[in-house]
């Protein structure tokens, strides 16, 4: 079996082939070309069936481009690796490329979503942004990664959770469009942490019980007393360092942080819905992307208002779980228990479990 990424020109060649042994491949390639946009990539799998016929399968594939800002703050920088190119000598470039691939794989293979917009949007990343730049961000079009200062932070490409987090900001932008402030902003952040963690768990085939539930594990240098930037399982415990202070994330709604900095503490209060997700995944057991992740993904596509708050989001997850698994299912019970575990009230929640939105 041969698997690879097929550039559009090769799809065209296959589509035009009239060799009998490539007949099915030609049909599949023609369909892909007809249905798809010009720059879309696809993954081609060739195999032989029981009668030794060549079977060609075309599935969605990522279209990645990594650029290098060469320690300036000018975007996009110079292109250094495109889809299908061999690995390069620069580890940050390869980490970004692989992380984008792992994120694409989760969305495509588990949720049937073809890239950020669901329509094969190219995935663009820039590495080596700025000088000693202690951050990674999404600018509305691309993922941007700094090298870190080397004293507190190392490379921001070194964890799949960071790359999955940034790309998920794109998914949220194209779906629920949650405003980046206060409670909807903290939900926006939490959704990025949830799917960032799931990208890592899916790539490593971890269960809810074996996963670390840490965001940005390994980003801190050895000088810092801490394991990661955030813990979804136990918000507020990721680090406790003399210079950085203690992880300030609240673990429940009673400790919601009111501040005007950080767009109303979106990176702090995300700890509350993060832990709710962990509680749901933990209770359901097994691979978190299958049920808990599916419920959160369904919720993201359920027509949320951009200003949805914690309680509104909680109600929407219950509605999504009811729709997929049934109103009296174990999944709905788990979602209720998750929100109740972090003290988020569910509006209009009736004892019969038939939550409506």
């Amino acid at each position: 079996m041969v698997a690879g990424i097929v550039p559009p020109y090769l799809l065209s060649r296959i589509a035009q082939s009239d060799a009998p042994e490539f007949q099915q491949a030609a049909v599949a390639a023609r369909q892909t070309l007809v249905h798809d946009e010009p720059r879309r990539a696809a993954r081609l799998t060739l195999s032989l069936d029981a009668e030794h016929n060549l079977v060609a399968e075309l599935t969605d594939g990522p279209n990645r481009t990594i650029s290098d800002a060469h320690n300036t703050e000018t975007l996009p920088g110079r292109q250094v690796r495109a889809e299908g190119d061999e690995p390069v000598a620069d580890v940050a470039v390869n980490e970004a490329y692989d992380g984008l691939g792992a994120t694409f794989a989760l969305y495509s293979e588990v949720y049937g979503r073809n890239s950020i917009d669901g329509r094969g949007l190219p995935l663009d990343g820039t590495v080596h942004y700025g000088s000693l730049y202690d951050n990674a961000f999404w600018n509305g079009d691309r993922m941007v990664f700094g090298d870190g200062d080397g004293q507190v932070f190392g490379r921001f490409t070194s964890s799949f959770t960071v790359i999955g987090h940034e790309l998920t900001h794109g998914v949220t932008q194209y779906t629920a469009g949650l405003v980046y402030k206060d409670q909807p902003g903290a939900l926006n952040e939490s959704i990025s942490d949830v799917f960032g963690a799931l990208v890592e768990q899916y790539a490593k085939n971890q269960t809810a019980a074996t996963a670390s539930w840490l965001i940005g594990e390994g980003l801190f240098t050895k000088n810092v007393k801490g394991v990661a930037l955030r813990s979804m399982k136990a918000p507020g415990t990721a680090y406790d360092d003399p210079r950085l202070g203690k992880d300030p994330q609240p673990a429940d709604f009673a400790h919601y942080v009111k501040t005007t900095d950080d767009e109303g503490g979106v990176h702090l209060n995300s700890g509350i819905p993060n832990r709710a997700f962990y509680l749901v995944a933990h209770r359901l057991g097994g691979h978190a992307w299958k049920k808990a992740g599916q419920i959160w993904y369904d919720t993201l596509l359920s027509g949320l208002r951009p200003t949805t708050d914690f309680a509104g989001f909680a109600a929407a997850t219950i509605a999504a779980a009811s729709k997929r698994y049934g109103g009296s299912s174990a999944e709905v019970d788990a979602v209720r228990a998750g929100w109740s575990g972090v003290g988020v009230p569910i509006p209009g929640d009736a004892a019969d479990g038939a939550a409506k939105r």
Partner: protein
Amino acid sequence: MVQRKGERPARQAAGVSILVVRSGGFAGLTQQWRVEAHDDAEEWVALVHACPWSAVGRDAASRDRFVWRIEAHLPRAVHRASVPDAHLVGPWRTLVDRVQEAGTRG
């Protein structure tokens, strides 16, 4: 300078205090820097006046970028602005770089 008891130092009235708070970013770590200037206050006033306090750019598209809260307490005025990382350029960048170099952290 010799001061009499109960008298505020005259130059403090002409002093300048500038606070820079960087929040947000992927890590959500807040850091701040502060400058208290007296003898060289005029230099700082010039840096503050160079910034477009009433015309700060907005950045609604970015996620996980730093937000810079800048407060300048001048002898006769107080300026406050929240500047998105994408707009921390020109005089804003000059002011923040100088505060980070000369100021105390914490």
